[in-house]
């Protein structure tokens, strides 16, 4: 057959030569020398010495070389079956809530990486504060407990369950008391779980204990109006705001919401309508709120209450008062009385005091000026704080008497926050069953037998009811990373609840109670994250009224719509309260005669100390002092001089047998004879980042008249040595330079351009460099100084979004913080009618008491100059201009000469001095693979030796453009938001396209108030600032 043709390989095969035939016999044509090698001689060959040495040398050398390179194995495990909703590289957002504020959790490939406000949230309207922004890091905290513990042993949940149940049954049988100690719980489901638990174990009581409590307000309202609640304040409806030491923009009750409300009467839209609220702050220490005040008067804590009393009588109320000895307080009184009288029904008085009597007087004043029903809504109260100080003291007594046999700590840490720690731990030791639901082995957990760690809020189901009629849901975005279980779940199991699964419990609870009334399904709720039952009147401002244009109408409508109030509040009797106030003030002043009055405050970042292990918050500069990683004794420079104390001297603050030693910090604006110390520091068992940072000031809190008072009379002595605080800003006056431009409201009303420098002669400029043509987009930003309260939310948001390293205290001391966005804070000292802004002049202010201080907060970030000084000097073109107006930084090209940073007039460039990601010196941050999961995969981390700076969130710009391209449509205005803009509670930052005549940023930049920082250098910055406007009181 033809197909069986035989091919020959060579002529030899064709001719079948004898050699070919012979060779073709075996498998291999040539015989292999196997025999030769395997014969005796071959096997017994002695390796010559030199060959041996060669082989040895090569072998050792090769192994050594191979071993030199540490090749870490990073296992990336692909999805075997791709989840339908997860697309690598595309973020998913889930609605959840943090402390009652609705949030959207951004997750990438199954891991949460960023928290943003939920636009549907009535409190935040899509905005979030610094604490909320930073909360994502707590999920990846390695200092947390990895599983339950029973008497110090690692055990499983079954052992814990059987032990606790057994104990509970024994306690139940013994008839002793059980107590659940928690910070405020406003979760409807959580409260229901506790109620169920109490039903099962009737000896149980739930005690709400807030470290920084608002018992004073709650009890005062009980006394004045019979309602033990915190009312819902409406700063956006007030034309005159008078705050007595309430830091409502920093930490008081609901700062995020109050920031938003406050700014509404001060932003571009409001100013355009020639409306601006007047804010008078009367306080002893300088707070974030104080920095924003139009008029700020420094008084001692003991005088605060007296001014209130006098104010009450000045407004026509009848009360026993005492004449004020302080002329400033007298002045404050006259001013406030006049302002409040003029603004009846449009005014609001708040006080940060936790003294019931003071709050009763505040209630009475607010009644007199008609605040109830307009600026204060007591019918739809706030549930954000419900702690009852007296309850906790009762518990302490019960424990001391041995009446309590079971105690559960939920989100409460009295071993740290209760003043007398020894008393507490001794009392606790008498309790038979001590269960801690802390996520970490904290101070209280250390005293407990059972540690039942709870997961992070991003791993849990829950809900919240921060304000009457307003509910939010908490849903998990990741499976619990550690072997943890929610407190509610544990309580359900231990109380043998028929529903053992808390998810099911929450769902049932909502489907039974809330969902029917709002007409939503469970799924809709999970999508939206929030639900409102009380109608629009609960929180007046809905929708994105913050935006200019549309905002103006909304604001005014909101302002003029008073709450339909059910129970109109009448006159309040303050007779007894006045007596008590006089007594307390006198005691405080007398106690401080040989020393000073101390006021304790919650820091904006760490709050009551629960966020102490969050490195982002530790490194967030205090909005006022710009100190990171420590608390300190804030003291007026003149008062310090009197005491012979120099800044950073260690100072011993003593009250009775309690004393702490902390460095002193000069705080302009601090009242003479007073000092302030932040709470929340000095944790001993919180984790790597927060342990032993600062000192614990809780011991100074005293329990008087049924509440914890955060003021005390103390003595001050100079301690040993000095301690340099790590400040991100060490020069505090702006030297009369026009980097900050401001005006007064009166001047602004006459001339909107006032203070911008626009009237000055403009000279012609000449350019050495060719113009950058930006034909497509031109990305720019507008920052309204009047809408910035300096809260620091943008700083943290920027850190999270852009993977900015935390450098730690020592590096901040060396002035090497890495933040791309900082908030510059400048003081100017009022000397008579002069405003002193130059540091050299301060030395000559001998007679000034440094109490009258005005403050400016100015967010400063890369200005994306069109004529960028950094771009011309880089030798390797690592930084260059884009066609859409951005100043780019190519990390890979940077060789690190730092010339760009030197030549940047705004000093916004940051150099990677170390390899912060992989250096054991930065162990308190991200030097482990678990915490690194928080990194934003869209932004590269930078190696040491490389310059970095604000990119205007180029990854977000790119994502937005791609989305628009995919959808084949032009980009919409505000579709792309930078991280700082997205979170700013005051909407002070607007990013957008200058080339779009209708864009919000274009409108903002076209505003009369716009100026550019250092515009005389012709750097042509891409960020325009709007002047600061102060609604000052013109003195007649």
């Amino acid at each position, binding site marked *: 057959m033809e197909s069986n043709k035989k091919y020959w390989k060579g002529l030899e095969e064709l001719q079948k030569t004898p050699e070919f035939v012979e060779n073709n016999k075996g498998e291999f044509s040539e015989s292999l020398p196997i025999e030769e090698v395997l014969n005796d001689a071959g096997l017994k060959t002695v390796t010559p010495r030199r060959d041996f040495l060669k082989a040895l040398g090569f072998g050792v050398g090769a192994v050594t070389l191979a071993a030199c390179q540490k090749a870490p194995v990073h296992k990336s495990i692909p999805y075997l079956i791709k989840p339908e909703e997860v697309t690598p590289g595309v973020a998913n957002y889930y609605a959840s809530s943090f402390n009652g504020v609705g949030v959207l959790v951004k997750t990438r490939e199954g891991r949460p990486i960023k928290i943003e406000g939920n636009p549907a949230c009535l409190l935040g309207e899509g905005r979030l504060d610094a604490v909320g922004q930073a909360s994502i890091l707590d999920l990846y905290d390695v200092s947390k407990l990895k599983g339950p513990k029973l008497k110090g042993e690692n055990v499983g949940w079954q052992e814990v369950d059987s032990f606790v149940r057994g104990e509970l049954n024994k306690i139940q049988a013994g008839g002793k008391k059980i107590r659940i100690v928690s910070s405020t719980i406003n979760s409807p489901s959580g409260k229901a779980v506790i109620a169920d638990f109490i039903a099962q174990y009737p000896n149980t009581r739930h005690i709400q204990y807030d470290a920084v409590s608002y018992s004073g307000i709650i009890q005062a309202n009980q006394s004045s109006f019979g309602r033990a609640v915190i009312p819902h304040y409406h700063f956006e409806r007030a034309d005159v705001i008078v705050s007595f030491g309430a830091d409502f923009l920093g930490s008081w009750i609901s700062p995020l919401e109050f920031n938003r409300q406050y700014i509404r009467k001060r932003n571009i839209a409001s100013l355009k309508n020639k409306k601006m609220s007047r804010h008078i702050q009367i306080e002893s220490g300088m707070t974030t709120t104080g920095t924003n005040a139009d008029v700020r008067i420094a008084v001692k804590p003991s005088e605060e209450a007296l001014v209130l009393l006098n104010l009450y009588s000045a407004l026509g109320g009848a009360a026993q008062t005492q004449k004020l000895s302080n002329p400033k307080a007298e002045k404050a009184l006259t001013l406030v009385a006049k302002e409040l009288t003029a603004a009846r029904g449009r005014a609001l008085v708040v006080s940060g005091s936790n003294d019931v009597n003071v709050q009763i007087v505040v209630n009475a004043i607010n009644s007199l000026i008609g605040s109830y029903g307009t600026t204060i809504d007591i019918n739809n109260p706030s549930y954000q704080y419900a702690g009852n100080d007296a309850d906790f003291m009762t518990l302490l007594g019960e424990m001391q008497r041995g009446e309590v046999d079971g105690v559960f700590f939920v989100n409460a840490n009295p071993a740290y926050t209760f003043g007398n720690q020894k008393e507490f731990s001794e009392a606790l030791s008498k309790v038979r069953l001590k269960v801690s639901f802390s996520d970490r082995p904290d101070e209280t957990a250390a005293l407990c037998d059972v540690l039942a760690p709870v997961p992070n809020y991003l791993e849990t189901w829950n809900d919240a009811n921060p304000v009457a009629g307003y509910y939010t849901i908490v849903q998990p975005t990741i499976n619990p990373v550690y072997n943890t279980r929610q407190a509610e779940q544990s309580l359900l199991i231990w109380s043998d609840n028929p529903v053992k699964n808390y998810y099911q419990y929450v769902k049932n609870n909502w489907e039974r109670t809330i969902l029917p009334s709002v007409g939503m399904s469970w799924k809709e709720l999970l999508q939206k994250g929030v639900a409102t039952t009380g109608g629009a009147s609960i929180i007046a401002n809905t929708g994105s009224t913050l935006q200019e244009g549309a905002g103006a109408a909304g604001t005014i409508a909101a302002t003029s719509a008073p709450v339909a109030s059910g129970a109109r509040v009448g006159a309040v009797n303050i007779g007894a309260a006045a007596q008590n106030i006089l007594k307390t003030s006198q005691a405080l002043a007398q106690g401080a005669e040989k020393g000073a009055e101390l006021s304790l405050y919650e820091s904006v970042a760490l709050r009551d100390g629960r966020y102490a292990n969050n490195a982002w918050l530790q490194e967030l500069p205090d909005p006022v002092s710009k100190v990171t990683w420590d608390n300190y004794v804030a003291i007026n420079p003149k008062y310090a001089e009197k005491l012979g104390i120099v800044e950073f001297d260690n100072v011993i603050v003593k009250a009775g047998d309690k004393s702490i030693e902390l460095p002193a910090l000069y705080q302009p604006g601090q009242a003479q004879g007073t000092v302030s110390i932040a709470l929340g520091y000095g944790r001993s068992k919180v984790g790597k980042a927060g342990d032993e940072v600062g000192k614990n000031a809780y011991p100074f809190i005293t329990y008087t008249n049924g509440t914890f008072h955060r003021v005390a009379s103390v003595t001050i002595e100079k301690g040993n040595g000095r301690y340099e605080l790590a400040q991100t800003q060490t020069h505090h006056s702006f030297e009369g330079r026009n*980097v900050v431009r401001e005006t007064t409201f009166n001047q602004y009303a006459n001339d909107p351009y006032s203070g911008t420098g626009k009237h000055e002669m403009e000279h012609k400029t000449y350019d050495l460099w060719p113009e950058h043509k930006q034909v497509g987009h031109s990305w720019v930003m507008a920052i309204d100084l009047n809408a910035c309260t300096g809260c620091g939310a943008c700083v943290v948001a920027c850190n999270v979004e852009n993977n900015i390293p935390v450098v730690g205290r020592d590096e901040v001391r060396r002035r090497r913080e890495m933040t791309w966005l900082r908030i510059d804070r400048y003081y100017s000292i009022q000397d008579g009618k002069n405003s002193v802004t130059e540091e050299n002049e301060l030395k000559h202010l001998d007679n000034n008491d440094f109490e009258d201080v005005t403050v400016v907060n100015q967010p400063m970030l890369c200005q994306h100059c069109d004529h960028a000084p950094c771009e011309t000097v880089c030798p390797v073109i690592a930084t260059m201009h884009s066609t859409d107006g951005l100043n780019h930084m190519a990390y890979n090209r940077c060789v690190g000469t730092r010339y760009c940073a030197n030549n940047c007039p705004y000093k916004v460039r940051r150099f990677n001095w170390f390899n912060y990601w992989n*250096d054991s010196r930065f162990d308190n941050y991200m030097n482990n693979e678990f915490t690194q999961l928080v990194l934003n995969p869209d932004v590269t981390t930078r190696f040491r030796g490389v310059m970095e700076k604000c990119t205007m969130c180029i990854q977000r710009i790119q994502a937005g453009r791609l989305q628009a391209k995919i959808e084949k449509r032009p980009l919409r205005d505000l579709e792309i938001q930078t991280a700082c803009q997205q979170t700013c509670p005051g909407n002070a930052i607007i990013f957008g396209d200058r080339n779009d005549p209708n864009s919000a940023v274009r409108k903002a930049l076209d505003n009369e108030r716009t100026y550019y920082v250092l515009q005389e250098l012709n750097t042509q910055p891409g960020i325009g600032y709007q002047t600061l406007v102060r609604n000052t009181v013109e003195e007649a």
Partner: protein
Amino acid sequence: MAGHNESILREPLITGENITYSQITEDILAPVENKPNKAWWIGFSVAVFFALVWVGAISYTFWVGLGVWGLNKTVGWAWDITGFVWWVGIGHAGTLISAVLLLFRQNWRNSINRSAEAMTIFAVICAATYIFAHMGRPWLAYWVFPLPNQFGSLWVNFNSPLVWDVFAISTYFSVSLVFWYTGLLPDIATIRDRATGLRRRIYSILSFGWAGSVKNWQRFEAVSLILAGVSTPLVLSVHTIVSFDFATSLEPGWHTTIFPPYFVAGAIFSGFAMVQTLLLIARKVMKWENYITMFHIESMNKIITVTGSIVGVAYLTELFIAWYSGVEYEQYAFLNRISGPYWWAYWSMMTCNVISPQLFWFKKIRTSIWASWLLSIVVNIGMWFERFVIIVTSLHRDYIPSSWVMFYPSLIDVLLFVGSIGVFFTLFLLFLRVLPGIAIAEVKLILKSSSDQVKQKLIADGKIKPEQAEAYQESLEKFDSVDYLKV
């Protein structure tokens, strides 16, 4: 043409009894051909110790990162660029002496040009180490050269003064090196001719086959002149361009048109001071008093006085212009220099650079070995402060007061600087051991071996006016090798 008689008033450039061509060779090659003396060993040990300190400091910096220095977010350059500019400035005297003075036929330069050129090269090496060291990622330093590459053919930024700097310094270094080596060729050949064994082979290679033929000499002269012509503009350009690093920037205190001449004058000032520092010791240790005479010392002191005064005028001009400009940032920058937290640096600079060289107006001081040496050190310190003042006090308080900071050097900063001086002296001391520290061939050109005899005979014969004869004898005394103990 009548016989050429040298003017009796011309002072001899080489002094000493019985100086002959052979004696010159012996004298100058003594350190190269003999075992080093104790003084050299002591000096060398100290220098090597500090060089090792430098190796340690720079290794630590490279290993850990630039964070080990004292720099911060606002002050991005401090001791690094101060050291860089200082060393480049020191490197200036070499070229000035070898090129400019050659063109101007200043023969006295022949005794000092070799060492000054060597000093230039070593100083530029020290400066170059700072360029590498100050980079965040020094392993990518080659990116500052416009090399063909595969990064999409990415070029350097020709707008950046740092790139100009790279060109200026590398050009300067290569030209100086070639000039120096060209001058060395006849001398290396001399060593070769006198050496044996391995030494001979090495120097034979290094001498590039110098045969001492007329053609050799003719080309040698031609090349020297050409190189001098090439180098002369470099004397002006290098520090001009270094000053552009500051002058083209936006920083108040940097952005100044006066910088180029001011920097060049300062560089010559510091360069001559460093030549003084080195040679006053070298001439003693190497017993070269006959070659580097009081004439040289005095001449160099005069140059120091002139350049120091130019620098002083520049300082005052800066102050005036700052006031006159009416620019508040500029005004503040200079006010801050004078009275700010770094006032002591400014006034150290002023004292060392402007006031102290004025002492040289006194002949007694400028002809005193000790005073000259001390003042040369003072000038070196002053010039370091000048760069520190310009760099740090401008940066630490510029436009935005919130970013104002203080700069404090770290230990590594200090070790690196002290170490770089060690590196410099190590190189210099090694140079003295292996190559002639004075240009033998060139010195021989200026030896007037017979003129002294002739002049003495003329005097003896009474053919010279007595006052002229007296002046000549006096000059001999005055410029003769100075006994240190007597001074």
